[in-house]
């Protein structure tokens, strides 16, 4: 038997704040599917939660990078600084 709606998608919107980013994606996809079948669906709360999660990731990444930059300023770290990975054939660049 095919289960068309995942358990994640079936949970109430008010629980969105407790979901991971992957779960938020799955929930939004379920709404997209519902919309494709003519069923109205509210996705604002999910989008807000996704943005919040991604901003949390950005804050953490920026903090980690700032800490890394601080460490890189040390004389010992400068010796092992990575070289640029520039490649003249950057055909993946769009």
């Amino acid at each position, binding site marked *: 038997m095919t289960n*068309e709606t995942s358990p994640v998608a079936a949970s109430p919107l008010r629980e969105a704040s407790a979901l991971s*980013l*992957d779960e938020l*994606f799955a929930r*939004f*996809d379920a709404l*997209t*599917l519902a919309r*494709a079948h003519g069923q109205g669906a509210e*996705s*604002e709360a999910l*989008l*807000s939660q*996704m*943005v919040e999660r*991604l*901003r949390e*990731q*950005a804050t953490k*990444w920026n903090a980690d*990078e700032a800490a890394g930059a601080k460490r890189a300023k040390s004389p010992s770290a400068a010796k092992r600084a990575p070289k*640029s*990975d*520039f*490649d*003249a*054939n*950057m*055909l*993946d*660049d*769009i």
Partner: protein
Amino acid sequence: MTDQTPPAYKSNSAFVPGTKMQFAFDSVSLGALKTCPRFYELAIVEGWEPRVRSVHLTFGILLHSARERYYHAKAQGANHDTALKEGLSWLLQATYDCDLRRPISLEGESTKTRLTLVRSFVWYCDHWRDDPLETVQLDNGKPAVELSFRFETSYEVTARGYNDPHSDDDPLSAGKYTITQPVVLCGHLDRLARFNGKLYVSDLKTTKHTLDQSYFLQFSPDNQMSLYSLAGQMVLSEPIEGIVLDAVQVAVTFSRFSRGIVPRSADQLDEFYTSLGAYIAQAQAYAEADFWPMNDKACFRCQFRNICAKPAATRTEWLRADFRRRMWDPLSTRGDI
């Protein structure tokens, strides 16, 4: 040869009807011509493309489109968060296949996934939330993003063709004909923006590579950047200062952003334009001879390498197996959402 009235142009065709002579060039088709005549023949004249589109191309198109939605929403008065969620909503729906009931496949590159795409979009918009570049508003009130352009050059192509008298075309035009057609340059500018009162073309690029000075240096010289600079000079009512390149480094765990200016002097644009005439002449010669020679020094990472490596007599069969026909149309317009 008898000169007769040529058939009516197909509005979406960049080629002189009935011929393999292209008269409307965008950066993609011009770049293909410059790279390798055979590549140009296969990709542009015959319209072969891989059955599975490059993940890099898909990723770039989706990011551009989401950003376009963001700018449109802001131009309509939405605040940053509302515009961001509008773009995000579009992006999530564009990356979900309702028929297959799963997200679209972005395979082949670990750094370019649905998650890194969504993350890059949200982080990009947040990063440039207080962007010193102000998107130009068009007279119709819309933001100048994904702006289609086309303009005639001083170059011409002369094509010779033949209309089948039994075809559905105008019977008066049946038979041999010659036609001289001005060469048109066309394309789409990502965004027009103003900074300190000066006008710039803003372009968006994604890459997995480090955004250091070397990254930005690769765009000088560069076919696309020169064409966009020239277009900016030709189609706008005021001169542009250059290209502002927004680069997005997409990695598995982060997206990083950097902005660089790609300058083009008048001399550089003159040289680009002079070279364009030489390339157009080459394209005409290839079309007349119906032969596009292989540049076998440009095969590295070429999508047609395996085809060109096969015996000539079998290539069409291999193309049919691994590629599909989809004519690239430089004259298609955008910016109308």
